[in-house]
């Protein structure tokens, strides 16, 4: 059965809201939406995940902050952001002009108390549809990564956040662990409303001419197509074990890649690095996804979820 790509139903329900489609830009790869909104209408997106927000302003790491690797890139931005107050005042209101764009705020910090304070502050914002807890950023010293690698600490964190959050809480998992499934189960048990994975894989590059690590921060997070097989495996494993929705992230460049993640068990996906290569990636990927479904007689995109498991 061949159908028209316009007739494919890309919509899905998440946290009792209808999403137009399952594609959203990933945190840190779309800033707060302003720049890309000059290029296309952000209403086209399923949702938007904005850059990690911390309690107070962070300057981030020294440069170089990015490096290219085979089919991937390393970054060590170090969570540069103006702090939650200014994010609420200066960044989020801009997105109100997009009438059907759920805004997901990525929250980061170096101690559980910081996270709690950020989430408390966000309760005052009318612009936040959901929170994504970034318990896995590899580029922040002192803490950060710890939450993402110890199930008990993660659980404590998620409980603390759930106790104060007024919106759904997505927990973003780190791939830099021995056992992603126990991390996922721990977060689910603590009340996570959804899980998103994966964040970047810790990596490093040497500048052989200068004889030192290329990134000023020594190591950084690997993203892009190179990590897609790692991400797909983790999404497959985690979605087989948890009941909450799983949002797939890692190396998505095309509509086919979205299909791969959804068949592996993802309910929705986030697109990161692809935005750097091609700022129009998200709308392109959305139409490629519709076309793929049409060519394969898939009338509702939700039918793809977990299809590789039967």
């Amino acid at each position: 059965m061949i159908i028209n790509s316009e007739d494919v139903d890309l919509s899905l329900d998440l946290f009792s809201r209808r999403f137009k489609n399952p594609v959203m830009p990933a945190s840190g790869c779309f800033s707060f939406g302003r720049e890309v909104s000059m290029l296309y209408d952000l209403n086209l997106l399923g949702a938007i995940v904005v850059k990690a927000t911390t309690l107070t302003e962070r300057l981030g790491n020294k440069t170089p902050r990015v490096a290219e690797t085979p089919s991937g890139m390393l970054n060590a931005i170090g969570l540069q952001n103006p702090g939650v107050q200014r994010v609420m005042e200066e960044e989020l209101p801009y997105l109100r002009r997009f009438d059907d764009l759920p805004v997901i705020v990525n929250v980061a910090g170096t101690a559980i108390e910081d996270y709690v304070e950020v989430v408390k502050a966000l309760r005052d914002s009318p612009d936040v549809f959901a929170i994504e807890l970034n318990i896995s950023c590899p580029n922040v010293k002192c803490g950060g990564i710890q939450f993402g690698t110890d199930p008990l600490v993660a659980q404590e964190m998620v409980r603390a956040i759930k106790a104060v959050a007024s919106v759904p809480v997505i927990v973003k998992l780190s791939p830099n662990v021995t056992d992603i499934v126990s991390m996922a189960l721990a977060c689910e048990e603590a009340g996570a409303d959804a899980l998103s994975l994966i964040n970047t894989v810790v990596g490093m590059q040497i500048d052989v001419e200068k004889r030192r690590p290329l990134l000023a921060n020594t190591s950084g997070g690997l993203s892009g197509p190179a990590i897609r097989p790692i991400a797909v495996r983790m999404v497959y494993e985690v979605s087989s074990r948890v009941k909450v929705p799983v949002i797939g992230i890692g190396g998505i460049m095309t509509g086919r890649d979205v299909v791969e993640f959804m068949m592996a068990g993802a309910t929705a996906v986030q697109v990161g690095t692809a935005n750097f290569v091609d700022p129009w990636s998200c709308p392109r990927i959305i139409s490629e996804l519709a076309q793929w479904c049409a060519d394969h007689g898939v009338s509702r995109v939700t039918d793809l979820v977990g299809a590789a498991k039967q």
Partner: protein
Amino acid sequence: MPKVRVVKQESVGTGLYKMVFESPIDLKEKGFMPGQFLHLRPSESYDLLLRRPLSLCMADVEHNVLTVVYRAQGEGTKRLARLAAGDVVDVLGPLGHGFAAVSGDRRSLLVGGGIGVPPLVELGRYLKKQGQSVISVLGFQNKSQAILLDEFAQIGDMIVMSDDGTIGERGLVTGALTEDVLMDVDRFYSCGPTPMLKAVQATMKVFCVPGFLSLEERMGCGIGICVGCVHEISQKGELKYVKTCKEGPVFPSEEVVFS
């Protein structure tokens, strides 16, 4: 993705290329600034994932074509160098905030080093068109690396320096920044390797000539969404990181902090 046709590609020195391609935007309508850059994908394949930033060297508004001049050093620029007339290349831009000519200036100094020289061409032409007199101080490793001399000769006075003396005077560009040369100069504009920019910044500070520096940082996106390309800037005594791809690559020399 904005794909455009390559109009011409030619070698202009050892490992150096000049590529002319259609502008991805209508230059007449949308405008551009000297000192902006283009962001080029080395190829369709994903192994070299990121775009390469190359300065806008010349813009031909009438034919709506742009010229970049670049060194094929790594894998990405080597792939770009393989393109020939008629091939398609994926170009974003012109991007960023370029050189601003300041009204009232009468004489400007351009200081360029190596592969930092290209963006000064379009700037020099623009300043000349504004009625300014222009003096260019250009430094190269050696004769085989000297580029765009004809273009600068047509813009105004020109001093060429080289590390080994095979062209122009032997020495660094800062060696040419004497009181004589700087006399009457209202403003300077500089682009080149970081050590050169530092030296130029220091020298110009001594001579109290204000100006602009064009900075080079590794870029993730080129459009302000990755925060990869920041540089330290001091504004009103406050230190902060600004994006060189969006607020830059050109900044007032006084504000630029080199660590």
